[in-house]
């Protein structure tokens, strides 16, 4: 530790820290443009200048100057102020004064700091430089004349996103940041460039000229478009969600967010179900809530519990799934399922279906095996964590599945389950790599579970984890990577067929007479029996609604107070940002109201009462946000025969990252991304 005095405040910081970090520790704010704590140090904006005593009498760039014991730093001396004013004047020489038409206005570092260090007028009379805008694809808008060449975007693309496509070409006044060869950035994390750009050079293309930051209501939410449970801030104005930004959570998403989660917002306004619909004479007609309820109740009347079933979709919140489950229990049905993809599960223990190492735990692992998973498309933020770990060095990554570019070096072992068997009996060389590791990790994707031999794959992967020493009292290296935000919550609630219940495939083809879909769109709805009466409760007119006999308009994830459990098993709560459109209501309220209509009133009138019931059903719901790291003592495996592996090659679960759910399918931005990156996707699929 080094003792540093900053403006008279003595702080102790670890050796190797830089002066800027010491100043932060002392509570002094240092202006900066190029420095970013998650990126390498560039030291090129010169805004963070400070004065250091007993050093050469000049200002020092604090971000690039290491601390020394006994150092005395001044952050607000006349020399510092003068130097920073000088730097600001130089930065503003070529920066246009177009704040009134700049989307960064109001949340711009340069604007904010110009208030502190900018001059009242310009001494520069020559022409300002103009730079041609670049085309970085459908998500990031560029106004390169505003660029102050901090190189944060270059470093982000190279270091965090792992797509070294941005660079600074030419030099001096001709220097430009761009891709040189014009092309869209091939990253699922490109939206983060907008956040890290300290000026308005990189802004959001879909959000261009939509709103000013001070007009927005900011609500803390949880992303529901993949199973990472990224913490988000939902910015809304009136009844509209205008944008979604990441919120800091070191354990989950750090400060990043995937492009689908960020840019699908325009899908929240399109294809919405905002009224009840009832099918009469083969056509859907608008109806009132009471008419819709009557239609369902009429159909339910006289039906045996075994002839009705319910399916929970991938975006469902835990509250509505519990209400649906209890409603169906009251109606005498055990036909429940949440696995639209048919993934094999063993819910006898929670660690058979969660990402036990935890996302932050990836950084402690020292070897990784991916089975039937492409984390770049299934969970880009987890992929970024894996990349972060690979960057730290000595992290062999092997993968069973079709080869793909994951942004870090991967040893592709083949795509057949026989590779897994060879790893198990130790005949494959990668088995030695895993065995030599102290904290190996195995990640099982949904593509490896959603197949006829899924249970065997699950058991074999668990067995392999045991063999290579991934199941230790202080280390749990067995992980299931989910793709659906609702899945772990549904499994925690046992939203699964009861002892005599039917799984989803058995409910199709006339297996039940009434099928209740809670936002379930991800299975082939044409396989539903012709005489099955379908109730679709959800927010988007997608596959499920098209087949429905009654549509009950529900709320999207931004429109309800919901509990989501991410793939790690972390329970998080999302807050209501805007109200559901039209007649739509929060989903648990719809189920509560309907239960009363059929005389099976659910025993909760408030969300608090429902949440109390959640905790009663499964105590994990009482532990919000916190997820302690855990090891494993009982290594008994899940049911399933590890030797029963089939021969079909593994195929990752997500084919098109940009369109995986009704919201992203309704989003024009995501459609544009799909079109732009189709070639890349096609290549990856081969």
């Amino acid at each position: 530790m080094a003792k540093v005095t900053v403006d008279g405040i003595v702080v102790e910081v670890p050796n190797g820290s830089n002066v800027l970090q010491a100043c932060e520790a002392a509570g002094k704010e240092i202006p900066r443009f190029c420095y970013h704590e998650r990126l390498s140090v560039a030291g090129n904006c010169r805004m963070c200048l400070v004065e250091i005593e007993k050093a050469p009498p000049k200002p020092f760039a604090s971000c690039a100057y290491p601390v020394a014991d006994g150092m005395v730093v001044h952050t607000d001396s006349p020399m510092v102020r003068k130097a920073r004013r000088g730097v600001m004047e130089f930065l503003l020489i070529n920066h246009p004064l177009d704040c009134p038409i700049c989307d960064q206005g109001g949340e711009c570092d340069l604007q904010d700091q110009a208030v502190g260090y900018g001059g009242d007028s310009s001494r520069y009379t020559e022409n300002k430089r103009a730079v041609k805008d670049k085309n970085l694809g459908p998500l990031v808008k560029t106004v390169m004349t505003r660029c102050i060449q901090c190189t944060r975007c270059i470093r982000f693309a190279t270091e965090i996103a792992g797509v070294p496509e941005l660079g600074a070409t030419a030099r001096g006044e001709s220097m430009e940041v761009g891709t040189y060869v014009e092309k869209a950035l091939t990253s699922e994390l490109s939206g983060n460039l907008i956040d890290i750009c300290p000026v308005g050079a990189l802004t959001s293309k879909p959000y261009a000229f939509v709103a000013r930051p001070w007009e927005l209501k900011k609500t803390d939410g949880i992303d529901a478009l993949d199973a990472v449970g990224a913490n988000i801030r939902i910015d809304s104005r009136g009844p509209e969600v205008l944008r979604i930004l990441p919120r800091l959570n070191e354990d989950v998403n750090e400060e990043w967010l995937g492009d689908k989660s960020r840019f699908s917002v325009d899908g929240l306004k399109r294809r919405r179900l905002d009224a009840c619909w009832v099918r009469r004479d083969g056509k859907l007609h608008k109806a009132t809530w009471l008419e819709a309820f009557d239609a369902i109740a009429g159909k339910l009347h006289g039906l045996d519990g075994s002839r009705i079933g319910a399916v929970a979709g991938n975006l469902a919140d835990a509250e509505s799934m519990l209400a649906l489950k209890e409603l169906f229990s009251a109606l005498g049905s055990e036909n429940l399922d949440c696995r639209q993809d048919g993934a094999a599960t063993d819910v006898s223990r929670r660690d058979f279906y969660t990402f036990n190492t935890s996302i932050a735990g990836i950084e402690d692992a020292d070897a990784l095996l991916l089975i039937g998973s492409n984390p770049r498309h299934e969970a880009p933020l987890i992929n970024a964590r894996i990349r972060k770990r690979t960057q730290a060095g000595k992290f062999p990554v092997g993968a069973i599945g079709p080869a793909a570019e994951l942004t870090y070096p991967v040893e592709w072992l083949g795509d057949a389950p026989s590779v897994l068997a060879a790893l198990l009996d130790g005949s494959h060389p990668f088995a030695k790599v895993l065995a030599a590791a102290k904290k190996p990790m195995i990640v099982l994707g949904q593509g490896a579970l959603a197949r006829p031999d899924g249970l065997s794959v699950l058991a074999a992967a668990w067995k392999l984890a045991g063999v290579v020493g991934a199941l230790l009292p202080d280390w749990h290296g067995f992980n299931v990577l989910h793709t659906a935000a609702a899945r772990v919550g549904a499994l925690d609630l046992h939203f699964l067929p009861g002892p005599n219940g039917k799984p989803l495939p058995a409910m199709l083809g006339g297996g039940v007479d009434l099928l209740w879909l809670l936002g379930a769109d991800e299975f082939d709805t044409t396989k539903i029996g012709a005489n099955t009466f379908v109730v679709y409760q959800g927010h988007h007119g997608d596959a499920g609604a098209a087949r429905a006999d009654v549509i009950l308009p529900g709320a999207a994830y931004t429109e309800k107070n919901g509990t989501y459990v991410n793939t790690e098993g972390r329970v998080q709560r999302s807050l209501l940002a805007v109200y559901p459109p039209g007649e739509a209501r929060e989903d648990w309220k719809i189920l509560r109201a309907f239960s009363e209509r059929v005389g099976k009133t659910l025993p909760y009138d408030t969300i608090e009462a429902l949440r109390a019931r959640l905790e009663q059903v499964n105590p994990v719901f009482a532990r919000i946000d916190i997820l302690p790291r855990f090891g494993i003592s009982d290594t008994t495996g899940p049911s399933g025969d590890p030797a029963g592996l089939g021969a079909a090659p593994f195929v990752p679960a997500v084919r098109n990252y940009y369109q995986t759910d009704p919201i992203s399918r309704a989003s024009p931005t995501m459609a544009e991304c799909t079109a732009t990156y189709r070639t890349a996707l096609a290549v990856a699929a081969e």
Partner: protein
Amino acid sequence: MADAHADGDDLTQPTHFAFDAQSEAEIPGILAKYPPARQASAVIPLLYVVQKQMQRTTASRWVPRAAMDVVAARLGMAPIRVYEVATFYFMFNTRPVGKFHLQLCTTTPCWLRGSDEVVAACKKATGITQFGETSADGMFTMTEVECVGACVNAPILQVNDDFYEDMDAALTLELIEALRRSEIPAPGSMIGRQTSAPVGGPTTLLDSTPAE
């Protein structure tokens, strides 16, 4: 000069580039100078190899984008890292140049010694109107460069790899006419002085005799 370093969207780039036998013979010696994990350090020498090969094969010393991609692949670098280097240094031409690349130094010492005259003579002899242009016959491209490190013999006109020193308007016209006839005069001082020795002969140690 900015033109010479624009990304060349208006330019038809060759779609293909491969090192020829002569270049391939040079490369191992270059790569051997750098440790295995630091092969990226060879980017500048390799870009020179490209430029020389282009001169041999097309009579135009430049680095096409396809060649930068080949260099990137050879050195295990991201292509953008090579683009950055190639566009940063004025020694690499990212668009085609004439057979003779006239690189005129106009930095202070050359300017004080009459580089403006040399520039004017180049324009007159080649018909080029401004820096970055190529003459109508495709023989000459004139670019402005920063100090080439030969200030004692200012002003300097660098033609491809060779320095022609102590230039003035008349010598420039003469040189360009010779180049046009595909005669390459011997590089060095054009007024006959020995390397950087004083103009007009020695000025010191005149009475010294060699030690016995």
